[in-house]
């Protein structure tokens, strides 16, 4: 791979890892605050919650204070994006390795593809059953589905690449 590809993929890898860490930390922090009541206050007669930045009164996370919303529209979404960016980072990492076409690459792409094809749709279905949904949510599900299809096609190309690489290795 040329230097530009390596630089871009490395940058995207670190960005995705950072975003993943951020989302997972937000999820963990929100769970902690919602369970313990620390750095959290209820508003509008207990209908809405406000989670503030730690050791400050500045609002950070806002939402409806009921279990279906907290589970399916809030925690599930932040946890999903934590996982999504982790997997996206793993995919970008493939492009700056000395060997691009590997079985590990195919595995990473299949994992990323499966996550985008099925998890948002499943999450949307759960949220539709137990909670209320905004129209934009379906658009996001569609975007993730298309991304999943692209990753699936890319995985097929990588699989072919692995086979060709294997044959190439047998030309001495």
């Amino acid at each position, binding site marked *: 791979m040329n230097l530009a590809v390596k630089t871009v993929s490395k940058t995207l890898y670190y960005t995705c890892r950072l975003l993943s860490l951020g989302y997972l930390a937000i999820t963990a922090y929100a769970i902690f605050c919602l369970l313990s009541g620390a750095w959290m206050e209820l508003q509008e007669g207990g209908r809405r919650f406000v989670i503030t930045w730690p050791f400050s009164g500045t609002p950070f996370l806002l939402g409806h204070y009921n279990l279906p919303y907290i589970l399916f529209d809030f925690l599930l979404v932040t946890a999903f994006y934590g996982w999504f960016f982790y997997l996206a980072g793993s995919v970008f990492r493939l492009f700056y390795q000395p060997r691009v076409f590997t079985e590990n690459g195919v595995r990473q792409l299949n994992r990323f593809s499966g996550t985008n094809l099925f998890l948002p749709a499943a999450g949307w279905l759960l949220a539709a059953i137990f909670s209320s949904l905004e129209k934009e949510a379906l658009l996001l599900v569609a975007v993730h589905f298309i991304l999943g299809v692209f990753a699936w096609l890319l995985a097929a190309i990588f699989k072919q690449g692995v086979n060709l690489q294997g*044959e190439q290795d*047998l*030309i*001495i």
Partner: protein
Amino acid sequence: MPIIVNIDVMLAKRKMQSKELAEKIGITPANLSILKTGRAKGIRFDTLEAICKVLDCQPGDILEYKAE
């Protein structure tokens, strides 16, 4: 595969070990073993040239066609 690689025969004639040949032609012993056991999909001209040079032989001494 109907193409037989006779490196072992030439090595025996020249009283040379596989490891020594691998070193002299600049490939790994593992790749030479792939070549010798007929698992290789192909052989590069420069590898063939190096083998012929080191073993002082012709490509026909190393490669043989046997109909299946």
